[in-house]
């Protein structure tokens, strides 16, 4: 009976979205449904995670067709971990959205679309069929287009045009790759592909196909030559939307690179070199972009790009320690990046602007909120013992072991620049006096107490999770260790699919 429970994270969000569509103009009902449903999905995901962690991978076939003919859902530890992180982030964002969004956006159907987006994310993490992964990707991007354009301000629409065209192109590369894979093997089931790819004679075609996949997922996860759509679009939508995008959407690309490059293609020297070059350049360009930004949201957008490079570098080395570092970084990054944009939303509520020249004096006015934000910022930088520190230890160790000194240099530069940028932000936003010519537009002070709580609690939840990841690193390392073992030796995944 546990088999069908895999679909709970997908179905709960689908049902919420449908009920919210029925309650189209009743924003209060929609908010209650959203927070309650996200909490229910979180509980279901925790139960699912516990099952998978104790009993190993299990699967469910659509309409009871046998593998490899069915569309199959596979709950392995990597997928379930990603679903768990998505559920935590979605819960926080839905709570934040209940107060941090204008009524206008809710009337245009923000909540149902948000839940369709989370449904697509959960489906993408749980599916075991490559074409089904493409379909979930399309569910994600069409929802994100709508969220990106809700409100229809000029800069939003212009950013959305770039975002849209690049994402459709990425889907086309992905679809081309799937077509070639089907032509070579006659199968779409990922476990079946893993077996059949060994027998393909034309190795050069396999290499080209893997590059197609890296191109498609690279656009989605914003790596070096393909990331320019991200900084020009991610700062335009409201904070709650940007939090979902920044925290989760780019990480789906990383997840897909991990999944495809462990099951279907085993990275050869060419792929590893390519990924390593991409990683180093991503870190450097993202860093240099972040150095001179004064708009907080644009700064965070470039930091997303910079930290994607850390993970790609871990995948490029493709040894157990490096993969552990990548997975740990992924876990930390989803929590922290979602929180960063929520924090920019809190600052927006407190001051009405997000550019550093017009901000200041927050520490004097709101010491408790500032302390909370400080913990999150220090996690992002990676001050020990907080969550950003541990994965970097693994990445550094493995980079020295593999003699990847360019990557070591990029890691050092990226980490130091992150520290510099965050220190600048702290001094400008929290310690500096408010500039004399700025009129403060504080929406936070007149709010009723419940709305204030709903704004601050999501940031606290994600902050507490970050601190837990940092202080209880041995638990996370155990999980990352098991996932890395499963990625390097995919036999457990394949056996679970074929029920041997």
């Amino acid at each position, binding site marked *: 009976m546990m088999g069908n429970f895999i679909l709970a994270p997908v179905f709960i969000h689908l049902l919420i979205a449908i009920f919210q569509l029925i309650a189209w103009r009743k924003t209060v009902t929609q908010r209650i449904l959203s927070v309650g449903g996200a909490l229910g999905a979180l509980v279901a995901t925790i139960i699912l995670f516990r099952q998978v962690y104790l009993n190993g991978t299990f699967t469910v076939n659509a309409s009871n067709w046998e593998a490899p003919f069915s569309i199959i859902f596979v709950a392995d530890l990597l997928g379930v971990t990603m679903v768990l992180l998505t559920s935590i982030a979605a819960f926080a964002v839905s709570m934040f959205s209940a107060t941090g969004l204008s009524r206008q956006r809710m009337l245009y159907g923000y909540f149902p679309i948000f839940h369709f987006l989370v449904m697509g994310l959960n489906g993408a993490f749980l599916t075991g069929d490559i074409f089904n992964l493409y379909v979930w990707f399309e569910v994600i991007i069409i929802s994100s287009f709508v969220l990106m354009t809700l409100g229809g301000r000029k800069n939003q*629409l212009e950013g959305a*045009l770039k975002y849209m*065209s690049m994402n459709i192109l990425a889907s086309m590369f992905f679809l081309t790759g*799937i077509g070639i894979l*089907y*032509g070579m093997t006659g199968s779409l089931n990922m476990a079946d592909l893993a077996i059949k790819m060994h027998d393909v004679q034309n190795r050069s075609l396999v290499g080209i196909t893997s590059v197609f996949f890296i191109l498609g997922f690279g656009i989605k996860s914003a790596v070096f030559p393909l990331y320019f759509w991200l900084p020009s679009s991610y700062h335009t939508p409201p904070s709650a939307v940007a939090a979902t995008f920044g925290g989760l959407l780019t990480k789906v690309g990383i997840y897909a690179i991990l999944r495809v490059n462990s099951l279907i293609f085993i990275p050869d020297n060419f792929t590893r070199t390519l990924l390593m070059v991409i990683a180093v350049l991503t870190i450097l360009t993202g860093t240099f972009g972040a150095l001179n930004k004064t*708009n907080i949201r644009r700064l965070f957008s470039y930091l997303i790009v910079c930290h994607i490079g850390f993970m790609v570098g871990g995948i490029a080395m493709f040894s157990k320690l490096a993969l552990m570092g990548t997975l740990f970084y992924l876990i930390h990054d989803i929590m922290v990046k979602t929180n960063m944009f929520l924090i920019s939303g809190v600052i927006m509520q407190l001051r009405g602007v997000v550019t550093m020249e017009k901000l200041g004096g927050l520490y004097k006015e709101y010491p408790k909120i500032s302390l909370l934000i400080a913990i999150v910022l220090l996690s992002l930088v990676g001050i020990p013992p907080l969550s950003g520190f541990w994965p970097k230890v693994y990445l550094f160790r493995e980079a020295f072991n593999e003699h990847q000194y360019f990557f070591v240099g990029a890691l050092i530069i990226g980490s130091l620049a992150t520290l510099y940028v965050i220190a600048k932000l702290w001094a400008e936003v929290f310690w500096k006096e408010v500039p004399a010519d700025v009129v403060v537009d504080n929406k936070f002070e007149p709010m009723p107490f419940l709305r204030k709580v709903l704004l601050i609690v999501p940031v606290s939840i994600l902050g507490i999770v970050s601190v837990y990841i940092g202080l209880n690193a041995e638990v996370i390392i155990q999980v990352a260790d098991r996932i890395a073992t499963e990625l390097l030796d995919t036999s457990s995944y394949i056996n679970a699919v074929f029920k041997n």
Partner: protein
Amino acid sequence: MELLLILVLGLLYAGGVYFILRRSMVKLLLGIMLLGSATNILIFVLGAIVKGKPPIIDAAANVMDPSYADPVPQALILTAIVISFALTAFAIVLLKRVYALVETDDLDNLNTPEEEDI
């Protein structure tokens, strides 16, 4: 038949790439549509084309005749067509809105997000 399809495929890819590299918004959209069609035909060709052999088992036989038209690529193309239809519809509406706000078709003028503040 396959050779003809491959020629059409190459033409569609070439046209799509050419259109995407133009500076006009409408041509960008046309290029995306052409590339989508090219990708669909590519999947069709890769699924080995067989003429006039539907995958239906005779009442008397127990096994499939080995050469039959593979239905899977056709199902994939059907799904991809539906998805690209939705995306294209959305893209056209978005283009119309952007054009109403910016009053130009030139992609180089879409720099408001970059100019706001560094």
